[in-house]
């Protein structure tokens, strides 16, 4: 969109993905889903079986998946944020600045969500039982 001369076909696949208010919340939603999953997993394991496995495959799988979603959307956002053009600060009423802004905000949210998921995973390593 920033470069009208480059036609749709010549752009890489990931550049064709649209970035909107909904994609902005993908990283924190991944955090939220992972958090809910962790809470339910621990609560149900402890309430129904009284313990959980020493190497919880389900939990590790869920965590890796959440991190991948966050990394992927962060990577996409990073590309949008670095759309070449005029120097910062990018705060004009142009399509490209709106894109850069959403990219930047999504990237930052991806960073926070990444830290959030890692924080949620730490207790399983350090506590490891249902006491």
């Amino acid at each position, binding site marked *: 969109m920033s470069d009208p001369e480059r036609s749709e076909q010549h752009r890489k696949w990931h550049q064709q993905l649209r970035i*909107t*208010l909904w994609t*902005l*919340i993908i990283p*924190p*939603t991944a*955090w*939220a889903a992972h*958090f809910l999953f*962790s*809470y339910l997993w*621990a*609560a*149900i394991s*402890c*309430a*129904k079986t009284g313990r959980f496995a020493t190497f919880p495959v389900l939990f590790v799988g869920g965590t890796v998946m959440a991190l991948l979603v966050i990394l992927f959307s962060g990577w996409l956002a990073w590309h949008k944020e670095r759309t070449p053009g005029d120097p910062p*600060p*990018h*705060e*004009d*009423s142009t*399509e490209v*600045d*709106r894109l*850069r*802004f*959403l990219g*930047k*905000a999504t990237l*930052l*949210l991806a960073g*926070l*969500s990444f*830290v*959030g998921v890692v*924080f*949620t995973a*730490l*207790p*399983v390593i*350090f*506590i*490891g*039982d*249902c*006491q």
Partner: protein
Amino acid sequence: MSFHEQDDPQLRAAQDERLRAAWAAPKGFFLRWTDTNNDAVGAWYTLTAFGFMLLAGVLALIMRAQLAVPENDLVDASTFNQLFTLHGSMMMFLFAVPMFEAVSIILLPQLLGARDLPFPRLSAFGYWSFLLGGIFVAGSIFFDAAPDGGWFMYPPLTTRTDLSGLGADIWMLGLSFIEVSSIAAAVELIVGVLKCRPPGMRLNLMPLYAWYILVVAVMILFAFPPLIAGDLLFEMERLLDWPFFDATRGGDPLLWQHLFWIFGHPEVYIVFLPSIALFAMLVPTFARRHVLGYPWIVLAAVGTAFLSFGLWVHHMFATGLPKISLAFFSAASEAVAIPTAVQIFVFIATIWAGRVTWSTPMLYASGSLAVFVIGGLTGVMVAVAPFDWQAHDTYFVVAHLHYVLIGGTLLPLFAGLYYYWPLITGKKLSDRLGRIAFWFLFVGVNLCFFPMHLSGLEGMPRRVFTYPAELGLGSLNLASTIGAFIFASGVAIICVDLARSPWRPFAERNPWHAGTLEWLAYPHDEHWGIRSIPLIESRYPIWDQPDFMRKVDEGRYFLPDAEEGRRETIITTVLDARPISVVRLGTPSWKPMLTAFALGGVFIFTTYHLYWPALVSGLLTLAMVMWWVWTGTAEIPERPSKPIGHGLELPLYISGSSSPGWWAMFITMMADATAFSGLVFGYYFFWTRHADFPPDELAHAPGVFWPMLALVVGLVGWVFTVGGREVHARGGVALARAMLAASLVASLASAAAGLAGPWLSGMNPSLHSYPAIVWTLAGWTAAHAAVAAIMLAYVLARSFAGRCTPAYDADLRNVTVFMHFFALTTLVTYLTIGLFPEAT
């Protein structure tokens, strides 16, 4: 008209007259209360919330007087318990949340260059609900009937009718009523921010206040409904003896704690973020530069909103849940400090990069940040579970929460008061009184609350009406009491300052030389909001766009006229704010007020167990709502489109996902779905609590047949509505009517089948939590089916009345949104109650 036509002063004067006439406030002793314009409703709302704050503050002073010395007997235990319960409840529900909504109702249209919010009558409805509910709850203290279970009302103390009287019902029902009005305000604000921005104000140019309001309103949407679900269960236990929280009959008191705190923790951020939003407006003004790190603020707001929903169990660290569960919440509670730190450093960086002009609002802003930082740091401390096991439910927590709420809500509001007073009244407040008051407040808050950290660590639990002298807590408490009265003197000085305002001269326009849109307001009020709706090219248009104020005033932008004498504003797209439509806004009317009073009747009569009057009020509410939407919404315009200047011609009617009405329905239903998920959570929560859930004797109730029948019939109803909408859009009006009628019948049949399951299995809801929660889910879904039937009947009536046609089908499209959510509710309910017992 074009840019140059506006050169003609006579034309401009004529436009002024037409706009003034269209936006004239109703006059007269009674009629003035029918006003719906945001400047009137917002002002009433603000004043009412401020009044409740003062009353709640006086309650706190009585408490502090009681605790000034050990073993005092100024008030008795019963009074004291009412005092702290009402102080907390009022400050949260009658001050902090409504105040943010009130301020936003005033400011948001100004910030967005809109003439008003998209649903002015909804704002008025929200206000009247708030006023009535607030008086009902707050007034109870004068009859010694106030709630006395603490502001989080833990059962079973509060659900046992032998231990808690009418106060508990007043709390639940009165505040539920206010929660409804909060959700109404949230709908209004979300749609306002997303759809009513001026052309050119893309997402990246939105004033930060609007970002925060968007985030906070969405938080309300997900935070309040679990509490409403909790209130529902709570009242069903109190009024009908359904044992949700009674451990002897399969209930669990902790279910309430979960539902309450899923609301309660986000609530803290709901009241904190709008205050930070005020900083985000005034810091750039006084630093004389654009805010530095705009995307960081958005990160912080959105990040905080999400993380705040992962904190609720940190209020339950001492309930004996498995340590692993506690640890998840401890981790999230620490993570939430990161976005908070980001916001503080955005402000520090902005101030550093700019050149600060010191002013009274800036003084309040810095003082409140100092107080807030202390509260935030003790917040990180209590997020550490082992520390919290000591600090929990002691005066340490009292100190922490007051530092956070005074530093993060109250003082920023005073900063906002001094900053925005000229915008609202055209007059500045006194700098001298403001500064004197500030120092009283600042010294008072620290003297009152800092010693509480120590009294808490020295073993003083919260919510005690007295304490023994031998504990040696007397001097710390006396210091707190003195601090509280110093703080109160500060508030009193501000009140004096406010009272003197009417006799002060008018200030110049935009007295702080700010750069954002809201400062276009004239010192002498014009009710039209903005003379012409500008094209925005910067985050700080008054600073950056040449001749901006003059062009707006001379009507050189969009919609400078009200040719048809109607109240109008522009609807734009969500991402890029491209103009797509002009909407006609609601005009002054009695309907919002009368609807609010009728709805209030339902809650108030139920409190006193007057079920027949409550039922009559309910029917009256339904009739009022019907009358309101029939006469006031989805009106077919006299012509399809109108010019708004600069060669743009916009439609006067839109339906579907670009229209405000569709968004309002969608957002309302998100809240509804969230409340429903709270009830579903209850079902599965009981399952984790019991080895046998359902209990053996009810293992096959309500059975598979009836729930599955209800599910299939309900989904058929949904398919008919969706199909009817498509057929209708293609011109098949008669067929569409038949399909909608079929859908109506299917909805009702689904409700009957859904209730038949538990009924025919003889499930007695007062025996055990299992039948109680099954009945609740079935009842909730049946109620939605009934609403679906009413809505479908409404659309059919509109169709026959010629008010809903294939070209103008907003009613049908909005009802379809409801039906999507109805289908979802049906699916989850009947799969849960029908199949889950068989699977376990």
